[in-house]
């Protein structure tokens, strides 16, 4: 399995796990693709055979089922699996909180569980902030006074779902 294939499978699986689109998670022109950092973290923290099992299971699901049925298959084949399930749930935490929690496979994970912020880049890109249209402590791109206006009603919360409706960053005149 090539590294590009690994990344594609990781992003595809992550899209189902997080609810964000693959384009949101790994924009075509991102100068600092956090998906690559997360995959590298996964590969560094989890035994290689289990990572391979996780990604190939997703790849099989993607090949055999239409998109609408894939989330249910991920639930059945991955999240309920005693080995892959905890890893998948830790991937969700990593995407939303930018943290890889240790001990995820031995018991419940809480906010006080030991873990590692993946990188300074990842810290600024946690999906939790996009989901709530907020920003992490110490880092905000939002313009001065943003708190005086209501959040946007739509779900275009990430740069990846910018007004062009595509992560490729196009829309140029």
């Amino acid at each position, binding site marked *: 399995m090539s590294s590009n294939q690994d990344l594609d499978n990781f992003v595809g699986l992550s899209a189902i796990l997080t609810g964000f689109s693959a384009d949101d998670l790994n*924009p*075509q*022109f*991102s*100068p*600092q693709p956090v998906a690559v950092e997360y995959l590298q973290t996964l590969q560094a923290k989890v035994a290689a055979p289990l990572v391979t099992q996780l990604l190939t299971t997703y790849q099989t699901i993607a090949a055999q089922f239409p998109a609408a049925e894939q989330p249910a298959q991920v639930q059945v084949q991955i999240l309920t699996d005693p080995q892959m399930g905890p890893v998948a749930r830790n991937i969700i935490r990593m995407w939303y909180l930018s943290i890889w929690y240790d001990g995820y496979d031995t018991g419940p994970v809480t906010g006080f569980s030991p873990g590692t912020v993946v990188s*300074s*880049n990842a*810290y*600024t890109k946690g999906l939790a*902030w*996009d989901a709530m*249209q*907020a*920003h992490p402590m*110490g*880092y905000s*791109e*939002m*313009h*001065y*006074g*943003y708190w005086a*206006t209501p959040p*946007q009603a739509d779900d*275009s*919360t*990430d*740069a*990846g779902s*910018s*007004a*062009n*409706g*595509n*992560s*490729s*960053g*196009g*829309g*140029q*005149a």
Partner: protein
Amino acid sequence: MRFSRPMICMIILSGLACMGGGGCTPVQPPANTNATPAATATANNTSAAPTPPPGTLGPAIPHDANFSDNPQTLAAIQHDFDVFSWQSFVALNWPAMPDGSADPGKIIGADGDGAVVWDGYKEPYEVFLPDGSTPTPWGQQQLPAQCRNLGPPGDKVLQMTQKVSDDVLDASGQPFGTGPLVDQQNGRYVRYEIRINRDTYDYIVQNTLYNKEGQQAFTQLIQFPKGTNPSSQAPDAPVGSIVIKAAWKVIDPAQGDIPGRFHKVQAYVYTRASDNPPTPPSCELKTVGLVGFHIAHKTASAPQWVWSTFEQVDNVQVGHDAPPGTKANFFDAVSTYPVNTPPPRPWNPNAVLPPDKRSQVKRVIPIDDATKALNAQWQAWLGGVNKDSVWQYYELVSTQWPTQPNASPTGPKPAGDPAPPFLANATLETYIQGNTPNVSSSCIMCHNNATTTNSKFSDFTYLLERAHKKGGGK
């Protein structure tokens, strides 16, 4: 969607030059060619000089980048923006006619050094007047009193000793640790200037954004004009807003400077009065050389603006084709002063610092290999026009552009995920180089915080913070 291919080549070849006035004025191509004058440059060429594609070295400021065909990758688009940067650098530094517009009969560097197009752009102190009154018309300049009657007229007034002016230093300069840059050769402070083109000036004046009352009354989202490539449907499309920031060092051959490696001007070096240390206002007429050059240009493909930054090649290490004995402008291997550290306070722009207190500057993020290769190409072309051209001694550090240009200005990520994520000019962001989010220099991320005097987003320029009340006062 993808980065579309505008018609820059057609613009250049058609001889439309966007000149000092900021608008686009037809320029007649020289006789016997349908390309720019560069294609016919021979007077000072060496026979082996490389020849750029016709129209490459031209006086037309590109309105936007020219995006190549598929496949589009991050590297390919970066290249397209880097080419846009070089085209802009050449056009802005094109020889100017007395009215400030580009001289279509000349070629950059062919006839030595001289007045260039952006010299005719307005400085902020001419726009944001202390009494909040209407700025002087485009093309007129007012000198500080201390600079008048100093003999031969100088070309520029250089008064800033940091990139962030005194007016906004408290708000934006000190939190980033910005400090003055001191020349290794002569111990003198580097001076800075900011200039705006006609499109920027017109937007400020037409919307009365030059004083606080006008900014208060302006209730819309501030949106400076963006450059749009002319088409048959819109042949008079605007060049867009451009803001120039330049860094200059005093040139002193007795101290080891090689004048032929710098674009030079005679400038009034003006120092404002200061309380710490007590310093009266002063003004000296000096020869200064260009060492840093920012171009910020709002374009259709980059509502977060395109940020191009150039340096003189000898800034942090001795550059190419240097004669024996050439020294770096801001680095000396034998100095013990800490690297990338501001000089000790108090900062006195009139002082000449001793060698052991002068700036020791290293580039933290190296210039990308692809950009280096592009630099070598353009430097060879400029040297091909004239083997003594000063313009061959400048290099592009990089171009920052938004990978998500359509990010909403009112959304959570309006900066558009810039590439590269960090960008610093060794002479303009000397002390904030690095790769720490929200701390290290990133043009778009920093200017994303710019506001008006009433705290509204000011469209990636800090200039509007300089407005005063009508009748005077902050």
